């Protein structure tokens, strides 16, 4: 049994996920209850009674990895962030083993491989304390009550909406229509590519095509839009001209020999 497991005693039958911190205090911590890898790391450093400015990196890394293995053995899914931290610890540990550059003078700033980690831990711990302060404040606030509803309160429940409410509501509306959208898909809407192919074929066969007649063949508004886009596309790319004999009259699609030159580029 490793050192870590000796310090953590657990009861697999009752509180499988509970471990009790060593040192005889009452500190009970649920496995996986750490808010993140930094918190776990701080816990291990504390437990080791190590100095945060001089972390015994090999020992702490070993404990950290042991903890991760423990979580896995208990089938607790280990968040990726915990694994990222494991990799960081191993990297720092290996850097610590490298001999210092003998040409570097003592004066030259020697970058301790642990420095970045220590900075992050210290920064994190400030916010962890701030979270504790917020917790206390909210507890105090819960002892204060505001008035019950009165006549003048608006009784049709209105929402003090934020932009995220707008998004959430919009998503709900969209979701409400999923069935209808599915129905529409089942109606086998014709794709733009298919529409283009059909249009090209018709023009090639006959040399020209009445736009009005073509549009009248469409069954739905969506098909009509697709047909319209197909016409624009074919005029742009395929050397097809739109001819109109009189204002408000029918428009004829007519094949011309050369495709129009592409402008710009």
């Amino acid at each position: 049994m490793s050192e870590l497991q000796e310090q953590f005693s657990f009861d697999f039958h009752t509180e499988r996920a509970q471990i009790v911190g060593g040192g005889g205090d009452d500190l009970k911590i649920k496995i996986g209850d750490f808010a993140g890898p930094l918190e776990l790391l701080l816990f291990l450093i504390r437990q080791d009674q190590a100095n945060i400015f001089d972390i015994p990196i090999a020992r702490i890394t070993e404990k950290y990895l042991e903890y991760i293995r423990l979580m896995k053995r208990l089938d607790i899914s280990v968040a990726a962030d915990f694994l990222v931290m494991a990799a960081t610890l191993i990297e720092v540990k290996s850097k610590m083993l490298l001999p210092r550059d003998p040409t570097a003078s003592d004066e030259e700033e020697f970058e301790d491989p642990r420095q970045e980690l220590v900075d992050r831990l210290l920064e994190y711990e400030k916010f962890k304390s701030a979270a504790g302060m917020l917790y206390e404040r909210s507890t105090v606030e819960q002892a204060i009550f505001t008035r019950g509803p009165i006549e003048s309160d608006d009784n049709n429940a209105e929402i003090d909406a934020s932009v995220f409410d707008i998004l959430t509501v919009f998503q709900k509306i969209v979701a409400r229509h999923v069935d209808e959208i599915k129905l529409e898909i089942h109606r086998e809407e014709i794709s733009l590519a298919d529409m283009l192919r059909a249009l090209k074929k018709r023009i090639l066969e006959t040399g020209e095509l009445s736009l009005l007649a073509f549009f009248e063949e469409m069954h739905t508004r969506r098909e009509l839009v697709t047909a319209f886009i197909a016409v624009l596309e074919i005029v742009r790319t395929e050397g097809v001209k739109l001819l109109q004999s009189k204002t408000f009259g029918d428009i004829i699609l007519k094949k011309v020999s050369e495709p129009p030159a592409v402008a710009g580029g």
Partner: protein
Amino acid sequence: MDSNLDEKMAPRTPSELVALAEALIFVADEPITTKLIADVLEEDRESIDAAVEELKREYESRESGLQIREIAGGWQLATRTELHEQVRRFLKTRPSAKLSLASLETLAVIAYKQPVTVPEILEIRGVQSASAIKTLLDKRLIVAKGRKEAVGRPMQYGTSKDFLIQFGLKDLSELPSIEDFEDLVQ
């Protein structure tokens, strides 16, 4: 929380009772009866009646803006009748970024689909939105954005500058996208 057994031994002073009655009348959803106050505080009704009468006198004597009034067999805290005019004026000016669900839904459709016509909103929401659109226009959250070149030339709507201000957006690109949301619910 420690059970204040010791404190409970000593009976409450009249002024403590007045304060407690005041707090309960204040938080109650509807007029609260003497009996209910007495039950909650485990006191007899006479003490509570005396406390509420004292409270009533206090509010009157200091010419408070509020009054303790007896209504529907219970006690209630309310503004004094003489101040109704100013109270009503305040209620009218109450800033209302607040929206009913129907208005919020309509606003959401307009925000994400603008410019959009009434029939298009109907199609997306599946319900008539005329009164919601009226509300949104009244609150200046949306504006007309010209007519659509379609049958009947329906009016199109979009969000207004006030919309951006009220929702703290620099421009429409700051509206959260579905992607922003996916990041949060992954």
